[in-house]
Structures are given as C-alpha cells and as structure tokens.
C-alpha cells in the first residue's frame, strides 16, 4: 500500500469513505486543508476577529487552536483562550496544565476559570449533593456561561469550539429522534444569537471525523489530555453514537451525508421552527436570561437549597 497522493509506502490511514491511503504528511495536510475549506465556505472568520478558543486540553480543542493559529500567523485574526476548571479531582488538572503549556508555546492570552471561584462550588461537591441532576447538566450550563463571560471580558468577537463531525451528527440525530425542533434550528457551523451578549460561536472541525482528529494530534505529536471524565455516563448521546458508528462500518459516508442533509434543510427548519426568546437579564448575575434567573444561577439556588 502506498500513499494515494505522493506514493510514500508508510501509510497511516485508510480512509474508508474514499478508499484513499495517506502517509503522515499528506494526512496532516489533508486535515488542515479541509478545516480551512470549512472556515472559508461557512465564512467562520472575518479579518480582524479576536477568536476565543474554548481550550480543555483535549484533542479537539488543541486541534482547533493549532489550525486557527495558522490564521493568526498570517495576521488575519488574533486568538485568546479560556480553560474551565470544573473541579474534578484526578482528572481536570492534567488538561488544565496542558492547556496552559499550549497557550505559553503559542504566546496567546489565556485564562483558567474555575467553577469554585465563579460559583463557590466544584463539580465534585455538586455530585455529593443528594438531589443533583447529573453531572453533565451542570457542567454544560456552567461551562457555557463561563465561556460567554470570558469572551466578553477578553473582547472576543468569536468563540471557537472543538465540535467534530461525530459530535454534530450525534446532535442532529438525537434532536431529530427526540422531536426537538427547537434545538435542531440551533446546530450548524456558526451560531448567532439575537442577544448581543452572546458571542458568535464557530465550529471549524465539524467536518472532521473524531478518529481523524485523534490521529492528527498523535501524528503531529501535540500534547493532549487523553482521558475519560470520571462522570461520563451511558447517555442517550452514547447510544445514538453507537448506532451511527455501527452503520458507518457498512456505510462509510453516512456521517457526511447526515451532515449534508441537515445543512440543506437547516434554513427551512429555522424559518418554520426558530423561537424568539425573551431576552431579559438574570436578576442575580446580569447575564442574559429567558426567565428571572439565568440557568446557572437557578442551578446554584437549587443546590444551596439542598
């Protein structure tokens, strides 16, 4: 077997969806070119943008940072990063340390924000409460709020997240299967909110399969945190993911076709199902909120009431 592009006999991947064999250099180049193509096609970046990378230290966020940095090298954009420390013992610190080292290596503005400093409680402490709602509910809401706040404080015009092809396809299928048309209108490469307090979010990796991102960081010898969150649980997302991966074995293009199909109907979905939320302010913290309290503050109130 030889690299389909350059003939190098040392191939590192057989792409099931195209039948291509690629060597290390051609594979790395193909990933970077594809992400750049997504950025151009979806108009994810504008000249002069300051992009905040949500940097956990895992493979997806490190890859996002690495490829976006090529635009920074060309003086097209500026980059900063935020790492959320959820307070998970024997897990999070490794990722935080890796994120700090990447930010130092690239010389970018970076801050680490902890749940403890922001809300006075760690995820470990939340999970000790008898009536908690499951780690992922809190983690998702608190993390999103912290990242949005950081974007405003650091003057970012975009927030880049490391969502990959698998994440996107899982979200499309989960929301479709659950009949959640509201959430279906919110997916896509670029999500904008009418509330100006919410910074535009972009997903440069949404067309890259998760396994290829893992291979990319190993091939480029990028330091990343490969570990499983101790609170990871068998979720509906996990079940949907298993079905899609099983189908992919005999239908290797199915993740791409699911994404393409969604992208074709997205505007129609938005026209028919997009809800306009009331954009008030949280009475407690001043963040945008549909109700009296934002989701993060209402969680904190509930947790204090235990």
């Amino acid at each position: 077997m030889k690299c389909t592009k350059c003939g190098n006999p040392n191939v590192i991947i057989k792409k099931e969806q195209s039948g291509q064999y690629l060597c290390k250099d051609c594979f790395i180049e193909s990933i970077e070119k594809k992400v750049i193509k997504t950025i151009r096609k979806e108009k994810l970046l504008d000249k002069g943008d300051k992009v905040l990378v949500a940097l956990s230290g895992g493979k997806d966020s490190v890859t996002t940072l690495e490829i976006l940095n090529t635009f920074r090298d060309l003086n097209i954009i500026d980059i900063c990063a935020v790492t959320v420390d959820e307070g998970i013992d024997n897990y999070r610190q490794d990722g935080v340390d890796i994120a700090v080292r990447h930010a130092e290596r690239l010389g970018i503005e970076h801050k680490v924000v902890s749940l403890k400093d922001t809300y006075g409680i760690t995820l470990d402490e939340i999970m000790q409460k008898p009536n908690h709602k499951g780690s992922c509910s809190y983690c998702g809401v608190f993390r999103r709020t912290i990242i949005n706040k950081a974007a405003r404080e650091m003057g970012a015009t975009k927030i880049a997240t490391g969502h990959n092809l698998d994440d996107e396809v899982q979200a499309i299928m989960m929301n479709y299967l659950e009949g959640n048309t509201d959430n279906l209108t919110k997916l896509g490469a670029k999500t904008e909110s009418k509330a100006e307090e919410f910074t535009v979010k972009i997903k440069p990796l949404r067309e890259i399969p998760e396994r290829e991102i893992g291979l990319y960081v190993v091939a480029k010898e990028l330091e990343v945190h490969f570990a499983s969150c101790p609170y990871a649980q068998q979720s509906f997302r996990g079940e949907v993911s298993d079905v899609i991966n099983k189908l992919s074995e005999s239908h290797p293009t199915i993740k791409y076709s699911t994404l393409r199909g969604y992208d074709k109907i997205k505007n129609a979905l938005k026209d028919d199902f997009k809800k306009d939320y009331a954009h008030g302010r949280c009475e407690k913290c001043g963040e945008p909120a549909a109700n009296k309290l934002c989701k993060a503050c209402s969680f904190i109130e509930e947790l204090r009431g235990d």
Partner: protein
Amino acid sequence: MSFTLKYTDITEIREITKQNYTIKELINELGLSSQTVVSKQNGELVIEDTLINDGDEIQLIQIIYGG
C-alpha cells in the same frame, strides 16, 4: 515468535500465534475498537492491516473515550 504490546499502563510480551497476524486482529482480541485507537509499530504510526513481526513493539493509543 513474540512481540511487545504497549497499551495504557500495560507493557507485556505476547506470542504471535498465527501467520499473517495483523494489528487489527490484536485489537479485536483485546476487545477494543479500531475506531477508538491508533497504532504504532516500532514507534511509527501504521494502519491496522499491518502485519506484526517477531520482535515488534506494538503500541495502541486510545484516542476516543466513551460517555
């Protein structure tokens, strides 16, 4: 005929029990999925169809975790 397997914190010598033994077969024997690991043979990334030779060091790196 044997090779060294490195996977997570484990390093062990394993016998090559058949001819044309591939990394893919090793991954299946270990109950892993080739969707969640990448493979190195003697320090170099390789595809899972690669044959394991006597004296090889095979490293499996888990890149995707469930949950």
